[in-house]
């Protein structure tokens, strides 16, 4: 049964979206920052560890789509890993809640250098609608040094992919 299905899929070609061009200015800015930091080259492959630091789970829904066959993150050398110890990039969503603050910092400390922090979603940038709450520390920069932000509530998988590919490109330059 499954074989027939697979053959059918083979006949029609992959469902994966063709890759769009990468945003040039973002790539350049990131490349400069990387050079300025004189960090070791990681190659054109990045391991990503996602951390929900207080999100409503909207961002997670769209990030999850990246691993599927439509966006197929791995074709760009990007992959999600289960441990911060295996990661180059921390992809952080949500405002940083006070209850998650320590866990976020400890996850960052567990990530080996060189490492990048990507703040994903409007809440991760400055707390979003939750700005001013007693229960949050602020955006991701309240806990970690942020290298790249991807806006949106939540950002679409296409926007996420653009941002992450800029990172790979900058890394390769």
């Amino acid at each position, binding site marked *: 049964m499954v074989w027939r299905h697979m053959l059918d899929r083979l006949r029609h070609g992959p469902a994966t979206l063709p890759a769009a061009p990468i945003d040039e200015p973002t790539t350049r800015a990131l490349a400069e920052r990387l050079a300025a930091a004189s960090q070791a080259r990681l190659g054109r492959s990045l391991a990503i560890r996602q951390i929900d630091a207080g999100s*409503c789970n909207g961002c997670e829904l769209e990030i999850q789509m990246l691993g599927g*066959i439509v966006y197929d993150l791995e074709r760009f050398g990007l992959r999600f890993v289960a441990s911060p110890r295996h990661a180059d990039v921390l992809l952080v969503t949500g405002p940083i809640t006070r209850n998650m603050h320590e866990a976020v910092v400890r996850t960052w400390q567990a990530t080996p250098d060189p490492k990048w922090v990507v703040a994903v979603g409007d809440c991760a940038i400055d707390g979003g609608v939750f700005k001013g709450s007693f229960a949050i520390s602020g955006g991701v920069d309240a806990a970690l040094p942020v290298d790249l932000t991807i806006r949106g509530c939540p950002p679409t998988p296409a926007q996420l992919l653009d941002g992450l590919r800029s990172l790979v490109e900058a890394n390769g330059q």
Partner: protein
Amino acid sequence: MTAEMIREAPSVACHPWSRHLLRADHWAMLAPPLELLALWADTQQVHALFHAAGEHLLASVAVTDRRYPALSPRFPAACWFERMIRDLWGHDADGGVDARPWLDHGKWGQHAPLSPRPRPSPGAPEAMEFLPVEGESLHQIPVGPVHAGIIEPGHFRFTAQGETIVRLEVRLGYLHKGTLGLMRGKSPRAAARYAARLSGDSTVAHSLAFAHAAEAVCGTQAPPRAAALRAVMAELERLANHLGDCGAIAGDTGFAPLPARLGWQREAVLRAAGAAFGHRLMMDCVIPGGVQSDIAPGGAEAILQVLAGLDAELPDLLRIYENYASVVDRMVGTGVVGGEIAARFAPGGVVGRACGRAGDLRRSPGYAPYDKLAFGVPVHNAGDVGARMQVRIEEIAESAHLVRMLLAELPEGALSLPLPLASGEGIGWAEGFRGDIWHWLRLDGGQIASVFLRDPSWLHWPLLESAVRGNIVADFPLCNKSFNCSYSGVDL
């Protein structure tokens, strides 16, 4: 008997059901067969929503000297609520079975943030205390709050004997964002943004329950076109989530074709939603009074095209799933919620309908436009992972059917009505993809004075703790995924 006691107590105006203020001794006598659906508070009273023989009852008790009689000795589901009420409002449950903190991890710099005068919290947070475990050859596995996948944070403390889970204790609260406090002092329109962000995967359903509550207070009803568009969005949300969940459950058995193809179908639904309503998750599209905007030109066609694609592929995919004995074998008999414990926790939604509880808020108490639509509510009795999968599979077909019916006869007319500046109380509900969502709010001169948002997961999480007992640790992800509880939804 106890339902009578609630009905006979003096009533306070609340729309559409009045709320009954019980004497403390009567409150302390409340017991099953009443089913406790929600427990929350304001600065002066503790409120409960009960279900009894098809009827919903609102009951309250006054808080005296920061205390009120606990319900948890007779209603196990009250336990987490009582801990939450203590952490947010500072009311202690007298005789409660668990007095440990819940949302308050000692890091807010204050205690009882929703009380009139929050007390400053003293210095360093205390270490979390877990339930004691005694016995031979037991070991503990602490997991979280940062998990291995792309999911929300929470702490799972497993006690295992070899491979077998003896106890799971879930500790949440990591996502507490002070949502209820942020909503106070805002108009329903402004506060709707928070309801929409209580749990992103249920953004439409929570926005809908919130809108229903606000409209109940104001005596307004969304125009027919808005009600129909709301239902289209709610069913698309259910479709997208069920497709994702069915794929993920199969994925957790190690079976890749299903998550791949169902993920593709989920993406198609999200795109159609984006094309029709301007946002893939349809966030902020449902507002108190109606909907934010009309369905875009070509939106209905985009949705119907996706449904046709789903019709064409789904039967094939399901045959593959059903014919793979090794996949089905992992699901059948795994993570069972028994009938007795289900009766004590009164879960709604997929978890409830997979163990024989037929409740669905779209039918009873019901809301527009479902009262005019014929649709099935699938119910299974096994209570295991397989049953929860099966309920979702059948609901996918029902939702697709509902969307087609709704789009075929979209009423013309206004998209929203302005809400008058009102004072008063109301309760609203909606059936999200997880289950029954309840929102209660009190308006004072058009501004929110007090509010509570009850996600279905409040009653599902404790059942997950129960369902994994006796299962192997390696099956936990499978069990967890089949429940798919919201963390943010209960962390508030």
